[in-house]
């Protein structure tokens, strides 16, 4: 399946785009996605931390990704 990942802040700059597409297997998890992202964008490993969100909720490493989910990469937040 093809998934799209929204990116903000420093991760938008690392990706060079506010949205990227990746091809993943149908039963892929959040940890699979992190592995793939870090292979393609090694600068992610230099961040203090980052999370992934699925459909506007923070996701856990074991969560499964489905086609058409809204996925976003969330670098360390700094609002307020």
């Amino acid at each position, binding site marked *: 399946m093809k998934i799209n990942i929204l990116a903000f*802040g420093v991760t938008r700059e690392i990706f060079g785009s506010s949205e990227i597409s990746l091809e993943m297997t149908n039963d892929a998890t959040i940890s699979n996605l992190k592995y793939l992202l870090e292979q393609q964008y090694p600068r992610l490993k230099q961040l203090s931390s980052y999370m992934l969100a699925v459909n506007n909720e923070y996701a856990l490493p074991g969560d499964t990704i489905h086609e058409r989910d809204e996925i*976003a990469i969330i670098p360390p*937040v*700094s609002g*307020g």
Partner: protein
Amino acid sequence: MNTQILLSAQTLDIQSCIDWIMSPESGGIDVFIGTVRNATKGKKVLKLDFEAYEPMAISEMNKIAAQAFERWPVQKILIHHRTGLLQVGEVPVVIAVSAAHRDAAFDACRYIIDILKQTVPIWKKESFEDGDVWVAAHP
């Protein structure tokens, strides 16, 4: 409605926040106003640029308000946050809480800003004379 959440690219209107939070049932109102400071670790800050993942930021701010209502006997909660470019002295965030008694208003207001800074997907880029930095991005 006892909650008002706003993400805005326009200047936040502090007086309208206070007008909304006031009610005859309240005995106290606590207002936190965040402002853009002119320096970070001794370095002169020129401006801040705020970016939000808007639908999730709204959803996380609503969650924090719901948690505050569960924990304290508060009456109304307002959270307004800016996006876009802000100059020194401008206001990126206003939090207002009303309650019958002041302790609940103080405690809930403190809780809301503390959790907002940890969970709400909003990012700021600080501009210095020698370049820009995404705050907290790197160790």
